[in-house]
């Protein structure tokens, strides 16, 4: 029994908790992608760099607050700075929309042209972010490091295995829950949210019933700015901030959105967790957990790591491919393929 509990604790410590935190971050990112796809009808390649820009704004304000001696005690100061980050990100996105996307929207170009346009926007955001904050790693988490320390947990329970929950992991999950709840309340209960869903389902019908498309688009970009900044800050707190990493997040985020079904918010969340759990599960060395769970004679010699961590992109990709081949609209019936 103790063996089993030890195994369970090791599993939670190395797989479940990191995967839940990572999954929440991916889900928030994928929600942004899926909203843009539903309302503006294109895949936004600049989303990773939007996240990077919002996070950068947050980091700059965090440094300012730290400089003034403001702190949240055990919580990271960055939480206070998030609203400023969202404002900065929203300003940039709305400016981009007015200057660039609106022109093509009026022309009703094919979606693939918008994708290419978003490639240009990606270059610009990427350049701006690197220009302001550089390419290096930025660690901006402060406050208490652990909710539960590994040693405390061992002392408390008397088990051999320790369980550590980092503050940032706790914050990630709580914040993600709040944001998702607020988003669904907005989409399902408010007038603006309902008009957004109507616009996404059937553009012509929505226009006929007097919905102002420009307003829907503006609100969408504002929500996207908030989601992208929060997702980016949570990821940055949990790991660290580096512009190139955020660009690379594009792949798992898109995989999550597509696996869930592009255009479906619920699907984006499910997809985020599917991708996160597969990535962490397949690249984790299972030796320790199996050592506890299997009888002595069957205990593995090797690391039982199914894949080297460097292949985590392959995981997102393979899941993406399987879903696309066998269920092209995604788990939650998004827009048809």
């Amino acid at each position: 029994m103790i063996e089993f509990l030890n195994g369970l604790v090791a599993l939670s410590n190395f797989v479940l908790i990191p995967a839940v935190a990572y999954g929440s971050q991916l889900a928030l990112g994928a929600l942004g992608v899926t909203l843009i796809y539903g309302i503006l009808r294109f895949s936004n390649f600049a989303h990773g760099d939007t996240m990077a820009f919002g996070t950068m704004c947050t980091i700059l304000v965090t440094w300012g607050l730290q400089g003034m001696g403001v702190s949240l005690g055990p919580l990271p100061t960055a939480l206070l700075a998030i609203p400023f980050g969202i404002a900065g990100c929203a300003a940039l996105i709305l400016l981009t929309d007015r200057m660039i996307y609106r022109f093509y929207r009026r022309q009703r170009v094919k979606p693939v042209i918008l994708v290419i346009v978003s490639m240009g926007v990606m270059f610009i955001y990427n350049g701006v972010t690197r220009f302001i904050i550089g390419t290096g790693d930025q660690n901006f988490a402060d406050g208490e490091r652990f909710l539960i320390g590994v040693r405390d947990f061992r002392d408390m329970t008397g088990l051999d295995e320790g369980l550590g929950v980092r503050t940032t992991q706790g914050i990630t999950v709580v914040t993600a829950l709040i944001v998702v709840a607020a988003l669904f309340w907005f989409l399902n209960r408010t007038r603006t949210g309902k008009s957004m869903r109507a616009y996404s389902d059937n553009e012509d019908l929505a226009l006929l019933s007097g919905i102002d498309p420009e307003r829907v688009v503006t609100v969408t970009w504002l929500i996207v700015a908030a989601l992208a900044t929060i997702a980016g800050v949570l990821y940055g707190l949990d790991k660290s901030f580096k512009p190139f990493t955020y660009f690379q997040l594009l792949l798992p985020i898109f995989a999550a959105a597509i696996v869930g079904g592009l255009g479906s918010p619920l699907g984006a969340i499910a997809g985020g967790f599917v991708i996160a759990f597969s990535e962490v599960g397949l690249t984790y060395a299972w030796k320790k957990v199996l050592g506890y769970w299997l009888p002595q004679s069957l205990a593995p010699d090797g690391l039982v790591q199914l894949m080297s961590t460097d292949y985590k992109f392959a995981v997102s990709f393979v899941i993406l491919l399987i879903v696309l081949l066998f269920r092209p609209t995604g788990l939650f019936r998004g827009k048809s393929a």
Partner: protein
Amino acid sequence: MTERARGALMFAIVAGLILGTGVVQSWNSALLILNMGLVSAVMALGVNLQWGFAGLFNVGVMGFVALGGLATVLVSMPPVGAAWSAGAARLGLGLVLAVVAIAAAVLAWQRLRAGLRGWVVAAVLVAGYFAFRAVFDPAVSAIESVDPAVSGYLGGLGLPVVLAWPAGGLLAAAVAWLIGKTALGLRSDYLAIATLGIAEIIIAVIKNEDWMARGVKNVIGLPRPMPYEIDLQNDPGFVQTAAGLGIDPTTASTLYVKLGYGMMFAIVLAILLVLAQLALKSPWGRMMRAIRDNETAARAMGKDVTRRHLQIFVLGSAVCGVAGAMMTTLDGQLTPGTYQPLRYTFLIWVMVIVGGSGNNFGAVLGGFLIWFLWVQVEPIGQAVMNLATLGMSDGNWLKVHLLDSVQHMRLLTMGVILLLVLRFSPKGLLPER
């Protein structure tokens, strides 16, 4: 102005820019830009085949370029005998096992009836994977432990390096065929994400499978098709000729080598350009464009859209592979850590869009022009920043920061150029005819 005159003028401008570099900076920089411009033009031709001819949205260019680079190592480096005897047979057996497992899974999927077959296929794949790892892993560690500081890999075939160029094309084509078989049925957005992922996976494989090309330990000192500068400088005949031309031997040798590369690349580019032009004007090219413009109509006319897409995906990727092999030959080393999607995928896309998608000459022009800007934006930006910060005191943090960040102007400029062209000249500088 006629199309032809417009094209000639544009190319003249780019030639002027490169010659100007030679006069203002140095002829070595000008030739460097020219050589990489030639390579970029070949890559742009490949992307133009896929996007311009057939409307396939491939953002996995980086992967095929890297495969070309891998081919250079596999073809030109001398074989490492000790590594071959240490584990090559076992390694081969492992790979054969993997292929057998996948084939068995595919066969099971086709032969069995629905219901149980999902589980059978999964079981075959899982069992095959563990068998593969059991055979493969010891072989890999045996090979990688052979003198890891200098080799630790199987080495190549020891053939002349120029053979790596077609080989790079073939390798890229083979991988593209595999990818195309699975991913080409997807709609354009999905294909884009899929190819983006595949490129990352190819890079991850090259980085991690050290037995193949040493991974991030890099392979340096690849054989060259041109003589080494130092040998030229020690060759009395060469020194005499250089003196006759009034150039000092060091400069002369570097120029000679770069010019040699340039000639070889130019020949490859010319051949590919002629082929691409012939293809564009042939019935096959017209069919491709018909499929691109209206897939449903083309299908209704009896065209096999899926097969044509696969065909052109393989061809375009092969061209990118050739370019990748040429680039690695020029660098003289394979450094998997330097492959980044912004540089090797999206920049090539900027070249094609700016040059004019669907027009081969446009793609070539875009290759030269964008490469020139990519290189020259930095010195230009430096000058602009120096001017802008002239009024600030020397220790000012803003001035220091601005001057340090000049290198990031590149990405910004490329984005602005792409958006400006898309907005004001959506068909590119040389529009499709």
